[in-house]
């Protein structure tokens, strides 16, 4: 699967409180959550972001709370994929579980500008910066996680598993 979109760049340690502030957690509606995505760090983000755009960030993206509302808000805002130098572990799990594609890539951030157009090939794990012509690769998901992604998220995966009568 290939994704193409313009980049929105963020720094290190982007925490779940800035991705979706707690004051909006009195709902689980993705559309409502998406209205406040990144609000506390970039109030203009929701107006700028277009469907298919790609978020690029530094180390430890998604640190902090376990709120799954964070990847849901990002996905709901139209972002098709998040590329970061590294992800906090709960965010990583949550993104996979809800079907928000994420890639770890160290080099890209230092050679990218806001608004560059990226093409991401999820199955190959490759990223092409169409604006600069440079390409990058990221580590492939372990087989087990690919199964979850391919099943369409963890719920579909466990449905299949429970259906097969695992203990």
């Amino acid at each position: 699967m290939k994704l193409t979109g313009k980049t929105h760049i963020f720094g290190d340690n982007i925490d779940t409180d800035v991705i979706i502030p707690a004051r909006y957690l009195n709902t689980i509606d993705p559309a409502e959550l998406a209205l406040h995505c990144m609000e506390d760090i970039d109030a203009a983000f929701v107006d700028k972001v277009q469907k298919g755009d790609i978020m690029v960030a530094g180390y430890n993206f998604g640190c902090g709370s376990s709120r799954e509302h964070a990847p849901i808000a990002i996905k709901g805002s139209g972002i098709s994929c998040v590329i970061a130098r590294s992800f906090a572990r709960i965010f990583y799990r949550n993104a996979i579980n809800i079907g928000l594609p994420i890639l770890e890539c160290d080099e890209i951030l230092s050679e990218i500008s806001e608004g560059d157009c990226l093409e991401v090939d999820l199955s190959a794990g490759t990223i092409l910066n169409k604006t600069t012509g440079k390409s990058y690769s990221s580590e492939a998901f372990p087989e087990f996680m690919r199964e979850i992604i391919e099943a369409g998220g963890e719920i579909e995966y466990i449905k299949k598993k429970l259906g097969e009568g695992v203990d």
Partner: protein
Amino acid sequence: MASAMTMTQKILARRAGKESVKAGELITAKLDLVLGNDITSPLAIKEFEKIGVSKVFDREKIALVPDHFCPNKDIKSAQQAKDVREFAKKYGIKNYFEVGQMGIEHALIPEKGLVTAGDVVIGADSHTCTYGALGAFSTGIGSTDMATGMAAGELWFKVPDAIKVVLKEKPQKYVSGKDVILHLIGLIGVDGARYMSLEFSGEGVASLSMDDRFTIANMAIEAGAKNGIFPVDDKTMEYINAHSNKPYEVFEADADAPYAQTVEINLSTLDYTVACPHLPSNTKTVKDIGEVKLDQVVIGSCTNGRIEDLRVAAKIMKGKKIAPGLRCIVFPATQNIYLQAMEEGLLKTMVEFGAAVSTPTCGPCLGGHMGILAAGERCLATTNRNFIGRMGHTESEVYLASPAVAAASAITGKISAPEEVEK
């Protein structure tokens, strides 16, 4: 021959039904408890219903605690709390704790004896790592994992590598677990233990009370850790026996267990430590912090709202008055702690001091309610996060510290060491 394992790895191996596991290995482990709150459970319930099972894996191994926006802060929160309550009723969940009998989940769950040594616990709340203080493996996950956990009673995990934290000697008077963990996070950074366990060890552990250990394990996530864990000693067993009838199993790290890194902390030389805005790793000692004037002091949360925290704060406040122009808000973490603080006269001391005392709730800790900050306001809190906007306006500031420092600062109106007010 089985290879040497860390304490965490041993627990995971046992619950995965394996003789040994290695860091990086993907395993499926049986769950002893699945936890959720009023913010994360509604999403988990929605996902759970999609799975299409007619019952939860075990009615006694799920705990639902409405603590974040409860007592209900607005109509939408009331609906979320109602959804959780109805789910608990529909599936016969035994451990649902209503307002009036509840507390902040991570203080409440150990108190109710729902976790004991050797357990594998997941919670849709990042501070689920708190129960590592009891020698259990416990970690935060999201709502979808909570849903699958409630249905299947098992979950996949990547076996973590570990950092060994060796504690030496004893802390000085008023230096507490909070100073230990803030100091450690300052050393290794907010992602210093990312994907790893923080395994505490050394002779210094014995000098830490259970409340100190809960505080330390609680903030393991603030270093990015998957879990924090303490060895089981006499104090742990005494705590478990006093709170639970559940059988428990004590695991010990092998002497030659593989650690990615070892960090040593000499408790006797530790000073009062404060995390400055906007990261828990941005630490300074009170000595080096300079003059930091405050608008609000918050004492409470799953990190520092336990009885010892209230005792030390009340001791420092006793007979004194709050600084003019300052607000001080105290949140005992559970109903039981509230009652105990009442019986010991701690609440009276605090109210006489000029503090507002609230019913147990997460409240201001996550900028929910009961003490939100306006633009430009500065708060010192005994909570665990000081991210931008965590307690209110994005232009407000949060400093993290121990209850002793919080109480002293409430007297002077600026960040202060307890000795400054005890002269």
